[in-house]
């Protein structure tokens, strides 16, 4: 961009949000160019700079966001929304430069509504902060992903995030009541006052998961829950995963635990052994039951009877409690995979009639085509009809090319192999990390002609194509 036009746009943005909230400093551009996506990390590790935004802009509310989008539309400057930057799919990387719109100034908690059981907040609020706000009144958000402390409300909404207690409390898209959204043309809209209705399609669900390609969510009402009177844990060891799937499916026809996590033998022998201390061979499964004590006690009885039928070894409460305490520990540097390893989580979801087959097919595809890769998995979000696989590939540093272009090729080819295998066997592109630039190309392969629905909405709302270009396959 020529200096003169650059300065003109900069001064208009400064006018919209205040000079102190519009930066062109190297440190700001740099820190908004690398998210949790392996490729951006690898690029930085090799001493290369990722594509950077030209302007880092932080509006304080929908009105300022609207002003920024109007400027961007006029000059046809790309806008990439940045929440916490903790996404794994490259969704927040400003691949075309332009404006990075950081939402974290929109972090106000407007209302803790104990009648309606929700917190209304700006989408730039860190989720842990709204959890604290709920806790101070004796409530909880029940959204406990490993990135709870890293990511914003908007980030979770934009990528359809999920927490460890999802089986009872739902995914982020189940936890939102109403939202305020700024459309690409700068119009500020509100979704339906209640999430369940017959007033046409659900506007919430159009913007949730849209990854900043259709507009910017600026305010949301997020559900809060009573703190459970009782939270009880039980660890089990299954002889094989088939038994575990059958046991889990049967259990879910009876009641919903909060946490259900099944680890394959490889992950039981690695991460679970290291962090939780389970030494035995088999597939470890952790269950948490919570709510009113009397009901939790009864559910525990049903759990033990049901899992007993499938030959599960009851490991007692100790491992489960340890797991709960350490549930985020898994993700700290030193425990989590990190550069120089090449790795990725290819989470997918399917009904019970397909899920185990997808696991075995993906494992076979990865291990056959990439013998240098290790494949581990757990199954951590369960429904009455199916569950998700959190499957990961890990390539040791010694097997990862130092040349960044070759490393990128290896990474992309493993992803293509894994996700295409999932799709071919009835899975979806992704369960709860989103699509970003990483998986955009595969969206078309999953949806086929259905993709035109998304493309039509995109064309109508964002005719200049300024919103987060090259993400979500749009």
């Amino acid at each position, binding site marked *: 961009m020529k200096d003169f036009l650059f300065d003109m746009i900069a001064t208009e943005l400064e006018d919209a949000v205040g000079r102190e909230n519009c930066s062109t400093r190297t440190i*700001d551009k740099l820190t908004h160019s690398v998210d949790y996506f392996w490729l951006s990390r690898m690029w930085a590790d090799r001493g290369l700079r990722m594509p950077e935004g030209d302007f*880092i802009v932080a509006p304080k509310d929908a009105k300022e966001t609207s002003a920024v989008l109007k400027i961007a539309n006029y000059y046809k400057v790309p806008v990439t929304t940045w929440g916490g930057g903790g996404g794994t799919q490259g969704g927040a990387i400003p691949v075309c430069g332009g404006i990075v719109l950081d939402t974290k100034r929109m972090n106000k908690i407007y209302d803790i509504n104990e009648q309606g059981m929700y917190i209304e907040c700006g989408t730039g609020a860190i989720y842990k902060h709204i959890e604290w706000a709920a806790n101070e009144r004796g409530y909880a958000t029940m959204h406990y992903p490993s990135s709870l402390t890293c990511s914003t409300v908007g980030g979770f909404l934009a990528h359809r995030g999920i927490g460890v207690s999802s089986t009872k409390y739902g995914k982020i898209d189940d936890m939102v009541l109403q939202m305020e959204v700024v459309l690409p043309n700068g119009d500020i809209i509100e979704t339906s006052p209640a999430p369940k209705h017959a007033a046409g399609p659900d506007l919430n669900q159009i913007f949730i998961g849209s990854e900043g390609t259709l507009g910017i969510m600026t305010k949301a009402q997020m559900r809060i829950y009573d703190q459970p009177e009782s939270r009880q844990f039980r660890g089990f060891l299954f002889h094989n995963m088939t038994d575990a799937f059958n046991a889990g499916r049967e259990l879910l026809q009876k009641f919903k635990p909060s946490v259900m996590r099944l680890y394959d033998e490889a992950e039981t022998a690695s991460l679970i052994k290291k962090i939780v201390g389970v030494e035995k061979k088999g597939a470890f499964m952790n269950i948490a039951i919570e709510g009113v004590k009397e009901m939790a006690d009864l559910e525990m009885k049903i759990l033990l009877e049901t899992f007993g039928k499938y030959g599960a070894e009851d490991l007692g409460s100790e491992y489960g409690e340890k797991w709960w305490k350490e549930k985020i520990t898994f*993700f700290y540097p030193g425990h989590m995979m990190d550069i120089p390893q090449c790795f990725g989580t290819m989470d997918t979801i399917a009904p019970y009639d397909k899920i185990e087959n997808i696991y075995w097919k993906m494992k076979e595809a990865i291990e056959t085509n990439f013998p240098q890769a290790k494949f581990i998995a757990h199954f951590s979000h369960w429904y009455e009809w199916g569950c998700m696989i959190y499957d990961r590939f890990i390539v040791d540093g010694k097997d990862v090319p130092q040349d960044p272009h070759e490393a990128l090729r290896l990474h992309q080819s493993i992803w293509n192999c894994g996700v295409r295998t999932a799709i071919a066997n009835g899975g979806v592109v992704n369960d709860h990390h989103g699509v970003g630039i990483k998986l955009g190309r595969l969206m078309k392969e999953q949806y086929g002609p259905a993709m035109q629905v998304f493309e039509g909405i995109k064309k109508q709302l964002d005719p200049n194509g300024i919103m987060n270009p090259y993400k979500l396959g749009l």
Partner: protein
Amino acid sequence: MRFSEKSKEHLDACRFCWMCRHICPIGNATGLERNTARARALGLSMVARDAVPYSDDIINNVYECATCGACVKECVTGWDPVMFVKEARLGAALDGKLPDYILKLINNFNEKGNIYGKDNDPAIAAAGASAQSDTLFFIGEDARYNTPQNAIEAAELLKKAGVDFTVLDNEPNSGYSMDFMIGAAAETKSVMEECAKVLSKYKTVICYDAADAKVMKREYKEWGIGLNAEVKTFTEFVSGLIKDGKLKVKKSDMCFTPQDSFLLARDLEETEPMRDILNACGCVTEMLLNRKDTMLAGNLIMAEYMGDVMDAVARDRWVNAKNVNAKTVVTQTPAEYAILKRTKPEGIELMTVEEAVLKCL
């Protein structure tokens, strides 16, 4: 800028990790992505790789860290952003790249003996009980030049307990502020050595400011600076006076909410003496993030160059206090008292720990 191997290891661990984002008082106050341990680590790791120069705006970002250690406390795998921040500050000093606002404070120190460039308040020297005691009441730079009245009240409290102590008119600088600004530079060590020489003439040193106690108990020891005197924090000492019956405190109907100083809670692992004092004076209501999890409420050195942000940091802490319907917030350090005072909302009181005790004698 060349980093030690240890720092490089920590930079590389932190550069892609956001787990401590929520706990950073500066990041919470500004909402800026660069005010995270991860952003600082990423920027410095790129400097270490010669991908970007150690430029002014990366250096400025290094000075936006309060070194409060909340991120260090939060990290379950033991990575230490404070360590690489201090090394980066030392590097900026050695490379002749200190920002003007830091140079100004250092010039103040060289000219006036304190970074604030202020003159000594004669009332403080007069606050001592005796000129010949073997116990020194060390006021420190923050209180002496920013909240002298608090130091005078603290001395008053010691006198009421019958403590025989000296206050120095020409009190040496502990080196805390130099350590904050340029880390383990020769100049910092030299200031500390001078201070240790003076302090070693005393049997006991009671530090009014936890910042001074922290460097005397930690950095002096770590850097082999000999200090013969026994160093006690003011809260530890006053708590002892109450337990020994030397201060007869009457329990009131007041309710106090402690603002734990990270210097005491995290660096010196002292959390209970203030609670013992306040429980003797009334009742205690805790706010979110207490004891070792405490959140910074103000830093006077940083207030010299980012005053607005310090005010925002303090306002965040007032929100925590208000959320538990705190009646009176009690501070342990002059810095937090000063910044909380200037941002105090209506309907809630602010006291130093000595004020609380004086009200209950």
